[in-house]
Each structure stands twice: as structure tokens, then as C-alpha cells.
């Protein structure tokens, strides 16, 4: 059941119904007990009265039983449904019927000599009280029909249940209205949220909320804050990306126009060559942007068991052609496999960009050295090149998105180290740069080695 309203209504109705039902059962039981007690007392009284009357010889035994004849001489209004049809039988001790009232059956009311019994005579249930009158040698039995008793109890409980059933719909309506009213703040919140436009991420007013739904409001506001921060990051990223792509596009367009109007072959060839390298650069930039966007948003679990040494070997293999084209060699010492916890894609992206940077910076004929070092339970991977290194004034900004140092190569997108930084942060690792004492740059990645 997905509606709080219906859920509350059903719970309240069930609880109310259960209370009513048990009250009803209780009243019915106690009414029955009371009725039984009072009527039993009357039975006993009647028996003793008949018995004492015949003992005193005030009436003869044969007609004594008829004195209890049904409502004799009583006005009609007193002999309604409840006119108590007592039946009396007087039996001699040897078992002959001496006398009986008109309403009494022919059969013996009770097999027992004294006290109360329940018996069935001719298919009718009787409650009977008997005494033995020793002096006269007779048994006096007075009984009344269970049907009458049952009707009495039934009438009392019916009188109770009819108004209850009539009131029930009114109660249901009241409960429904109360639930409705109680849920009004929730409705108001829902209405406010439904009417919002997609870009409305202003916090909802928590102070005026009832404190039951205040946690919801607070959680919503937290979500709004996170969404708008993510959106701001995305907007900044898109506008930067657009800006960074427009410049090479402007270059390509300008070179194309130069090629179209150039009168000499040399100018035209020069322009076409630059168009080609401009397209290459733009392509690299787009790839880097996509890579950064995926590193930014990757939802991969960071719990995979990753063999970082294997990833490092694969990355170096991949880049060996690029290095060879620049006449740069990569020295990767053989080392045993090492398994870390993290995401293999992020690790590969980080390592690849660091090594690519080193290749780009390395002068022809030089060597790039990669070291693997286990310090306590940490793993440190360092990539060292013989390039010009990072200028001191640029050191703080090298991992900024789109930052390109004054000595940057024409093909750089300014995104490589930003990608590394993002990937490393997501992996919970650390990235550090330091100048090499004898020239070049050292880039180190520190991974937490505990698995």
C-alpha cells in the first residue's frame, strides 16, 4: 500500500473496529452472565415459593403448578416478548406427574432431584431448578426456556450494535478528514516541488515545516545543493571546453581561408599542413575532454582487485611507439605483480597521461625512468624525464584544467594533468611533482597498498 493516507486510514479504522468489537463481545458476555444470574435466582425463588405454598397447605398440590400459568391476570403490556414463561411441574417421588402448568411440557423437565440443570425436552432447551419437598413426598421443578433467555441477550446486544453501525460511517468520515488535514504539510511540500521548474534549485523553507518532515526538507536541500554544485561544475566545464575548442577551430578556419586565397603553392601547402595539425590537435583535445568527463563521472566501484604492475606494463607497451617516434626510450624495471584496490580504468588513465607528458617533454635521445617502490604498505610509482621541467611559477597551476605553461607544446590540450589529478583523487591516491636535481621532472603517484 503506497499511500500514507490510505495506510493511516486503514490502521485507524482497524484499531477502532477492534476496540469496538472487543467492547461488544465483552458487553454481550457480561449481559448474558447477568441475565443468567437474575433469571436463575428467579427460578429458585419460584420453586421455593411453590414448595412452601403446598407445604402450608394453602393450595393443593395438583393446582399449585398452574399458579405460574403464563401471565395470568397480568395486563397485556407486561406480557410482551419478555413475559416470562415459567413452567412448573410437580412430580411425586415415585415418578408420577402430580401437576403441571399450562406451558410446561409433558416430559419430565429434569432428571436431577435438586439444583440447576440444563435439559432438552421435546427439542426445546430448558433451564430447570428442582427441590424435593420431603414432607409431601413431591419434587417441584420450575424451568424456563433458553430461547427466551437468548432473545433477551440478543435484544440487549442488538440495541448496542445498531447505533454503533450507524455511527461507523460518520467515524470513518471524521478519521478520513483528520488524516487529510494531518497530511496537509506533506501535500504542500509536494505541490511546491511539483510546481518547480527544472532549474529552480533554491532550498525549501525548513523552519516552517512540522518537525516530522523536517528531515525530508533538510535532505532535499542537501540534494539540491549537491545537484546545483554538480550543475555549476558541468556548466563551467562546458563553457571552458567550448572556449578551448573554438580557438583551434578558428585557427583551422583561418588557415582554410588562407589556403583558398593563396596565390602561390608554398603558402597554400603551408596552410593545408597547419589545417592538418590543427585537426589533429582538436581531435586530441576532444579525446582528452571525453576522457576527463568520464573520469569525472565514472560510477565504477573502486573495490576491484587491480594488478597495477600489469596495467603499468600495458601502458608502457602502448606508448612505446609514440616514444620511439620521438627517439625516447622508456626504462621500466621488471617487478613482481602487485595488487591494489581501485578502478583499473582510472589507474590506466592516470598512468597513461603522466607517461605521455613525460614523452612529450623528453628531448630526443633521452631516457624516461619509471620506478616502483613499496614503502610500508604504500606503493609509489615515479616517472622521471629529462625535459625542461615545470617552471616554478607554473607549479601551483599545472593541474588546473586548460592550463598550459609558457613552454607548452603546441599540441597540448592543457587537460592531461587535470585528468591525472581527477583520477588520482577519485582513487584516493596522491600526486606530487618535483624537479630532478640533475635536470628534468619527477612525477610520483602514491597508492595506498592495503587491500
Amino acid at each position, binding site marked *: 500500500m503506497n499511500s500514507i493516507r490510505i495506510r493511516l486510514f486503514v490502521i485507524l479504522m482497524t484499531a477502532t473496529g477492534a476496540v469496538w468489537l472487543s467492547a461488544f463481545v465483552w458487553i454481550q458476555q457480561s449481559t448474558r452472565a447477568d441475565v443468567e444470574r437474575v433469571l436463575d435466582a428467579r427460578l429458585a425463588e419460584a420453586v421455593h415459593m411453590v414448595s412452601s405454598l403446598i407445604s402450608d397447605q394453602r393450595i393443593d398440590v395438583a393446582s399449585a403448578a398452574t399458579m405460574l400459568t403464563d401471565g395470568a391476570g397480568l395486563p397485556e403490556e407486561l406480557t410482551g416478548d419478555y413475559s416470562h414463561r415459567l413452567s412448573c411441574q410437580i412430580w411425586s417421588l415415585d415418578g408420577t406427574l402430580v401437576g403441571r402448568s399450562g406451558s410446561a411440557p409433558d416430559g419430565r423437565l429434569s432428571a436431577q432431584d435438586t439444583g440447576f440443570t440444563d435439559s432438552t425436552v421435546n427439542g426445546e432447551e430448558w433451564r430447570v431448578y428442582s427441590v424435593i419437598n420431603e414432607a409431601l413426598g413431591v419434587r417441584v421443578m420450575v424451568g424456563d426456556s433458553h430461547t427466551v433467555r437468548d432473545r433477551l441477550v440478543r435484544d440487549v446486544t442488538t440495541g448496542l450494535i445498531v447505533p454503533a453501525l450507524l455511527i461507523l460511517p460518520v467515524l470513518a468520515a471524521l478519521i478520513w478528514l483528520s488524516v487529510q488535514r494531518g497530511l496537509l504539510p506533506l501535500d504542500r511540500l509536494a505541490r511546491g516541488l511539483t510546481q518547480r521548474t527544472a532549474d529552480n534549485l533554491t532550498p525549501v523553507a525548513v523552519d516552517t515545516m512540522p518537525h516530522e518532515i523536517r528531515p525530508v526538507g533538510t535532505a532535499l536541500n542537501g540534494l539540491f545543493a549537491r545537484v546545483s554544485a554538480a550543475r555549476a561544475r558541468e556548466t563551467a566545464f562546458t*563553457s571552458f571546453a*567550448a*572556449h*578551448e575548442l*573554438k*580557438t*583551434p*577551430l*578558428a*585557427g*583551422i*578556419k*583561418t*588557415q582554410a*581561408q*588562407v589556403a583558398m*586565397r*593563396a596565390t602561390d603553392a*608554398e*603558402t597554400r601547402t*603551408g*596552410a593545408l599542413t*597547419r*589545417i592538418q*595539425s*590543427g585537426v589533429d*590537435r582538436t581531435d586530441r583535445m576532444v579525446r582528452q575532454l571525453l576522457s576527463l568527463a568520464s573520469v569525472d563521472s565514472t560510477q565504477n566501484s573502486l573495490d576491484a582487485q587491480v594488478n597495477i604492475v600489469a596495467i603499468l606494463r600495458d601502458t608502457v607497451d602502448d606508448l612505446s611507439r609514440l616514444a620511439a617516434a620521438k627517439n625516447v626510450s622508456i626504462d621500466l624495471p621488471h617487478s613482481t605483480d602487485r595488487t591494489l584496490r581501485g578502478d583499473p580504468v582510472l589507474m590506466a588513465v592516470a598512468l597513461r597521461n603522466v607517461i605521455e607528458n613525460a614523452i612529450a617533454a623528453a628531448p630526443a635521445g633521452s631516457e624516461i625512468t619509471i620506478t616502483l617502490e613499496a614503502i610500508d604498505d604504500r606503493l609509489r610509482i615515479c616517472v622521471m624525464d629529462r625535459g625542461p621541467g615545470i617552471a616554478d611559477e607554473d607549479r601551483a597551476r599545472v593541474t588546473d584544467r586548460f592550463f*598550459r*605553461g*609558457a613552454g*607548452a607544446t*603546441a599540441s597540448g590540450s592543457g587537460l592531461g594533468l587535470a585528468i591525472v589529478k581527477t583520477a588520482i583523487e577519485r582513487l584516493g591516491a596522491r600526486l606530487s611533482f618535483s624537479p630532478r636535481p640533475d635536470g628534468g621532472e619527477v612525477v610520483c603517484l602514491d597508492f595506498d597498498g592495503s587491500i
Partner: protein
Amino acid sequence: MRILIVEDDATLADGLSVGLRLSGFTPEPVETCADADAALAQGGFAAVVLDIMLPDGSGLDILRRMRKRDDPTPALLLTALDQVRDRIAGLDLGADDYLGKPFDLDEVAARLRSIVRRAEGRAHADLAWNGLSVDPARMSGTHKNREIAFSPREFVILRALLERPGAILSKSTLEDRLYGWQEGIESNAVEVHIHKLRAKLGADFIQTVRGAGYKLSGETA
């Protein structure tokens, strides 16, 4: 017209240089704010084309420094940020015009001519002298009811002379204007182009001032 181009993207800077040269300008590209400040301090530019995002700062800062030292050189901003507020910021800082990337080379040339013309206080685009009327946009003109077309290099020299009629321009000044052509300057380039101009405009349109340089002849009409 010498134009300073401040742009760090090599492909774009090269395209602008070559393209503007083909349109009869004399562009000089620099890549950084520092180089731009140094070049502007020497002066002599008819206009400056400024990129905003540069490796060592913002083109807007170059502009701010120029206007602060009362350098009136007209400035054309190249911007990839298409936000209105960026354009407003640029114009308020003293830029004369802006262009969003990517742009059309012809439009860059037209806007440069326009801001230079305004800076010189001329309402008409045409340069005129002694029966010659030149349309810089087409690098052609009419002389004595004859349609004449000029090569970009001829036009660079003619325009330099037309900008200051009567003034004597030295051979090295004119060489400076031609500076930057990728084939380099042959030692007699100026003489070659003056010769070609005289063939088109008549021998006495440009006078040689011995030992000093060249100037336009006085108006005869």
C-alpha cells in the same frame, strides 16, 4: 599598416598573419602578454588584435595597461567566450571592437580597416590622392578613370605612402612594412615594388627623395 597580433595558438596566429598579409596588412604575431607589452611599448602599430586567454595572463590586462598609459592604438578583441558580459567588459576596458571565434578572415580585415579609419578620424573607407582613389578592402582603385589592381605587397607600400601624403618614408620604414613575408626581404624589394607602382600610376606619382626615401608628389589638380 602594421598590426600586432597577440595570440598563443600557433595555428590561429599563423593563419591570421598570413591571411592579413594577403589582405594588405603588415601583421606581427606575438604569443604572450610580456611580448605584447614590449612590442606595444615600441609603438608604430595601426591596430592590435588581442586574444583574451593567454598563457601568462589575460588580453584584457594588456588592454587595461595600454589605455592606462594613454596608448590609443585601436584594439580588436578575439574572444571564444560568447557571453554578452565578456564583450561588455572588453568594450568598457577600451576595446574598439570584438570578434567571436571562429571568425572570417575577411571580417577581421574589414573590422581592422574600420577601427583604424575611425581612429584616424576618416569617415570614408577610400584613400584618395591626386586623382587616385583606393578601396583598401579590395586592394584596388581607380586612377584617371582606369581600374587598377595592386598586389598585396604593392598595396602595403602604396598604403603607407597614402596614409601620410607628402611625408617622406625611408626605405627601411617601407621594408619594415613588408617585414614578415615568409620568403624574406630581398635587398631591393622596396625598389621593385615602387617600380611596379610607377608602371601602374605613372612615373611621377611617387617621387624619390635622394638619400631620404620616397614620397607622393604634390597634388596637381
